[in-house]
């Protein structure tokens, strides 16, 4: 097939147009399915996951037999996950579980756990994880360590802000950045020192406008910076935890 040969040479956009044409010609169900699968593969290769999910939604026909519809629904869920559309991914899985419980499989459950992780809904993810291990890896369930027993310890943005408000540099130190804490202390201290020296030497405008002004800027900046640093810290902790769970589950499934 011409579209297949384009796909094999890496011309994914061109191949997707030919697959779309097959769909347009609407010769028979088999041909339509080949076209849908082909175009889906092209969109995935181009990393256009949201378009792939939308494409499946538009073309997944009730005339297809159950085995094919379940494949397409699974691919739609996979593409929604890869497009970082986690809420839609979870809602689609719930819909499948309700309308077509016979379609539920290992990959869908994996995607549900990973999507819940990305949304930081760890209590739900933990329940799903336990069900997953019990159903698909019963022999290993005693050996496998449940990662949800050691959730990432996140820091509070409010605490960082309050610390920085009353103690320059404390918020940055709390966020795990000692050099930034030191810089904050140095700049705020220097501004206050300059203000005091200027006032003593009767440079009143300098003392007020430069000294106090710089101190206020660095102080407020320090409060905002410590909040930002805590956000970055939390984001990295969540990322590490989610990676750990993802690697554990994908490695287990790869061995199957």
């Amino acid at each position, binding site marked *: *097939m*011409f*579209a297949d040969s384009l796909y094999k040479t890496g011309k994914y*956009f*061109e191949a*997707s*147009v*030919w697959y*779309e*044409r*097959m769909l*347009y*010609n609407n*010769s028979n169900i088999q041909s339509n399915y080949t076209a849908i699968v082909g175009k889906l593969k092209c969109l995935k290769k181009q990393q256009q996951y949201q378009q792939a999910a939308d494409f499946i939604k538009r073309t997944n026909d009730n005339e297809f037999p159950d085995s094919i519809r379940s494949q397409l629904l699974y691919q739609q869920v996979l593409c929604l996950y890869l497009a970082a559309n986690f809420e839609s991914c979870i809602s689609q899985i719930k819909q499948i579980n309700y309308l077509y419980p016979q379609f539920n499989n290992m990959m869908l459950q994996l995607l549900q756990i990973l999507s819940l992780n990305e949304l930081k809904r760890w209590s739900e993810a933990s329940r799903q994880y336990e069900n997953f291990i019990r159903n698909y890896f019963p022999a290993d369930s005693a050996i496998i360590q449940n990662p949800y027993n050691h959730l990432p310890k996140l820091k509070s943005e409010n605490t960082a802000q309050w610390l920085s408000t009353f103690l320059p540099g404390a918020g940055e130190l709390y966020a795990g950045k000692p050099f930034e804490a030191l810089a904050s202390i140095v700049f705020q201290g220097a501004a206050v020192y300059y203000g005091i020296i200027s006032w003593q*030497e*009767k*440079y*009143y*405008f*300098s003392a007020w*406008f*430069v000294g106090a002004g710089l101190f206020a800027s660095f102080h407020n900046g320090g409060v905002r910076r410590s909040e930002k640093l805590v956000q970055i810290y939390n984001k990295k902790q969540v990322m590490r935890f989610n990676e750990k769970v993802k690697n554990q589950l994908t490695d287990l499934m790869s061995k199957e």
Partner: protein
Amino acid sequence: MKNSYFTLNILILFLLPFFSSAQNNFSNDIKFVQYLADKEMYKEAVYVLQNVDTNKISFNQKDTLHYQLGWMLYNLKELEPSANNLLKVSNQNNYYLKSRNFAAYNFAYLGHTDSAKNIYDSIESKDSVLRELKNFELAGIALLERDTAKFSKLQHNFTYSSYTFANEEKKIEQYYKEISQFKHKSPFLAGLYSAVLPGAGKFYAGKKMQAIGAFLPIISTAILTYEAYRKGGVSSARFITYGSVFTIFYVSNIWSSVIAVKVRNNDFNKNYNNKILFSMHIPLRNFFN
């Protein structure tokens, strides 16, 4: 004989699937392009059209091809290639007038007003509405070029009788009045005002809030410099630091006031050009769609 005939039929039936996906029937191509356009898949539509073998189609089909390609490129906002394709549509085609009008509009949008005018000059308008449409578009182009004399001449032919562009004729007249009333400012005066009073040049150039926003920091650095000079003298570190900062801000304010006049003119022109082009576009969409 009967067996070989039957075998040949089987062979053809077997080979048929391998050829069906590569059929080059032009009308099927166009129908497929329409299907893609309905789904707003214009990039894909352009790809299909660009892969049509022009050696295998008739003259009329080439017209259709150029029109479709021009229209798909227009939807992708690739105006120059769109215009080039639309211009290839011959006067025998039903879409000739639409193609010419949109090609001219594309060139006007891109700032190639001479090309746009040439296209309109080549169009023969057969009825009064089309003549007035042509007149209106040429008036719009004259206004884009700021050729007020030509605009006035073309404006006399506005009758406001066609519902598709009567409103736009009135709007474009309003734009003409506002453009005529635009007061040109002198960059030299803007610089001079800023030299005398920081921010005044920006105020003169129409940036009133920027004037206040510039005045306050400059006057503050001036006070700091003066305080440093009074208490420490010319050689003090404070005076040198604050003086340098004041000088940079003061000179930058003068320089930017001069440029602000040019920015003001550019902003004004950009704003009105957008309005004129929008007014020119509406009758084309109403008339030809």
